[in-house]
């Protein structure tokens, strides 16, 4: 246990969590990362809907899709389901 953890006097009762999981990054779970081919992407939003992590955001004002690698666990559902095959899963070094 680290010193960052609080004492019983400092925390609210009954385990009410004081933090949103938005602060808990899961991006380092992944082996493969999704790489998008922007020319093939039709912004159909299939990946946004089916991503279990909510890691693919649709930005309506820009009409763009953005993948948040901070949460992406690399499952590959987006690549598997993309109707235009605009997403491929790659090892980070392959990408570099």
């Amino acid at each position, binding site marked *: 246990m680290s010193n960052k953890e609080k004492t019983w006097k400092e925390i609210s009762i009954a385990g009410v969590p004081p933090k949103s999981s938005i602060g808990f990054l*899961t991006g380092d779970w992944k082996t493969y990362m999704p790489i998008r081919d922007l020319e093939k992407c039709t912004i159909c939003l299939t990946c*946004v809907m089916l991503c*279990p992590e909510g890691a693919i955001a649709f930005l309506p004002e820009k009409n763009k899709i953005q993948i948040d690698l901070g*949460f992406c666990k690399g499952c*590959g559902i987006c690549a598997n389901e993309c109707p235009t095959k605009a997403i491929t899963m790659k090892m980070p070094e392959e990408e570099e």
Partner: protein
Amino acid sequence: MTTQEWKFTAKDIAAKPDLFLSGHRACAGCAPVSVLRLVMKATRGPTIVTQATGCMEIVGSIYPYTSWALPWLHTAFENAAANASGIDAAIKIMRKKGKIKDEYVDVIAIAGDGGTLDIGLQALSGAVERGHDFLFVLYDNEGYMNTGIQRSSSTPIGASTTTSPAGSVIPGKLEKKKPITEIMLAHEMEYVATATPYYWKDLITKVRKGLEVEGPAFLHVFAPCPRGWRSDPAKSMEYSKLSVETCVFPIWEAVNGKRQLSTPSKVISLAPQKKKPVKAYLEGQGRFRHLFTPQNAHIIEEIQRSTDERWEKLLQKCASGAT
């Protein structure tokens, strides 16, 4: 239920902020967690969510973090519907007494197949009989995955789990899947439906319909579990789709007992040649791997036969308008 159906576009849904947040601890490729996200996309206003103990309860509430942007309650495993009963009762009386100002507060209870078909069935039946106003969402991944892949009464014939292992004598689970929607329909509920997340638009529409019912509504959502099914995490949505295309899990809704196929299943009913063989769904899933051997080939045949039989019965029920 309102007669005006809720219309939405993919962009509307995509732009709606998540109420089940990122940073949860579900396995990569988890379809049940997509179900949570999509169900929350269908909310229409003030909502309270309650969950039974299970994977989907654990992954979003590990102290000091929460993935729930909505008021959320978990108490135990077998009682999600009893939680909903208490919340519903509190809302009703506190609104009457002016302690709650909201015109309505939707209540959604969520449980896995263990928390619904097995240990949670009594509380569910009781809450439905009492007519509480809530939507019960079953995410069915066909086993006790949170505790390490044990058999539930929702595990299908032939599947190997840690308590129905494929051995040299017994080839996995021998018993049929419990027909939970038939049990719920027998309660004469206003709204009972099935869905699966690949058909996300259908799922979201059904959640909204369930919320609009004044009284209990039941939604059975089929949700592949790559860990428990020993399948490729990238293919969770593919199996979701295949479950419908093979008629292993047809999708439909019953409003006041009148059953109607939903579009993806309706397409197959109109063009039976589109119906895929169950093999297409079974292969690739490690839990069925032992079936692809000469001595177990008859089990696949049996799965095909019983799937066809259930599909035919469903078509008859839809045609006759009976439950």
